[in-house]
């Protein structure tokens, strides 16, 4: 089982600086963004980001805590989960 990718999802009321905030936090941890999908559904901002954890500096837990804190500051919900859970559920 590879352990190198994670999915970051962001959901909340749209406002300036959400993508910038998430991207900056990821950059601080030396994380490369592999794919982004983003849309606005009736004022609700939703984004899924596939990130590469191979060059992650520090602990997964620290990254998760930093993103959670950023989410609280921006008023959005951020989930950071390893990619395998989505694969497990949706692919045979």
């Amino acid at each position: 089982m590879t352990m190198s990718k994670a999915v970051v999802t962001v959901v909340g009321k749209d406002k300036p600086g959400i993508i910038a905030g998430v991207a900056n936090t990821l950059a601080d941890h030396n994380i490369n963004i592999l794919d982004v999908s983003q849309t606005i559904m009736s004022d609700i901002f939703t984004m899924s980001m596939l990130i590469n954890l191979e060059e992650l500096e520090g602990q997964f837990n620290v990254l998760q805590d930093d993103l959670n804190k950023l989410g609280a500051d921006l008023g959005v919900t951020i989930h950071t989960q390893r990619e395998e859970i989505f694969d497990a559920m949706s692919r045979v």
Partner: protein
Amino acid sequence: METKQIQETINMVEEEHLDIRTVTMGISLLDTIAGDPQQTAKNIYKKVTTYAKDLIKVAEQIEREYGIPITNKRISVTPIALIAGHATPDDMLYYAHALDDAAKAVGVDFIGGYSALVQKGFANGDLALIKSLPRVLTETDLVMSSVNIGSTKAGINLDAIKLMGETVKGISEKSDTANAKLVIFANAVEDNPFMAGAFHGVSEADVVINVGVSGPGVVKRALEKVKGESIQVVAETVKKTAFKITRVGQMVGALAAERLGVEFGIVDLSLAPTPARGDSVAEVLEEIGLEQVGTHGTTAALMLLNDAVKKGGVMASQRVGGLSGAFIPVSEDAGMIDAAKEGTLTLSKLEAMTAVCSVGLDMIAIPGDTSATTISAMIADEAAIGVQNNKTTAVRILPTLGTKVGDMVDYGGLLGTAPVMPVVEKSSADFINRGGHIPAPIHSFKN
């Protein structure tokens, strides 16, 4: 990766109560047996705390990394009656406290396996264990017990049923809640990760990880989208949903086993409710089209549900085991509690339901003045359903002192609350007092 699938997974956890109900580490204690009970107890404590020392840490890290809650972390051990071959009932307290202390030291929710297998007859250790139950279940906190009193191959041990009726009654006189920690089985399985009936069978490997999945809320939500459609669509929807739920269980179990450096055992394909609204098996049955669980049609709907969960789950996991079916514990399921309160759900309907699902009369409050022989007779009926139909059945009933029908009893936390349900008052004493052994059923001429 599609955004829709990602959002679906997140919603299942956030809104539909998808969780891994339990990661249970099974530990064999056969190599802890020493001549002296106190030495054996020390060995038990040492083995359990050595192998399970990282269980909580590993499970919590998986929860965090994958965003999937693991509600319970547990341990199951070899049936203690086998370890306690020549013990006295007083000696049994050493074993029970060793298990309790070890469970507390590693931080698990429960430890199961304070168990005896007496479907054919009693050995010294079995009797010592059963006699110690009122003390053990009231003096320890995390120890869970089970006694297997019948099997399809061995028949039903009526002497054991009589003894267990008296034991349940005796425990109820010391505590209102301790009987929640005791299950009386027919056809008990060796790799069940669920409490209170988990134990680590003698045919198992030294240490394994077993996983129990949950998710009635997810199934209900999926069924809300197929309202009014044919029953095949219902079966198909349950199957697909069970597949997804079970895949998560398979993934978590494999990860936990790998990180703990032990073998991965089985996934138990189950729908296990909690008292939370929206996490109820009863609500799934009602979504299939019953006004309230317990009405006519409940057994049929449950049969379909139980079967579809297995069909979906089997393909999703490498190795299936445990009890694998829908659980119907009354006090732990908001919809069951409502139906029992209103009188729609009765003991006789619950008994019929246990013929088509896992596991039995579970977490049911009955009046405190119910006689021991009536409790035994309830156990005998459940055992008969299991033994005849080649399936596991169980009884976990809670006679509650000073209560009458309709009173509500609160057991706390995941054990929930239950209305005291009416029991038929005519006596079964002469039947139970006959004692002896009900022969194993014939397995030809099936009708």
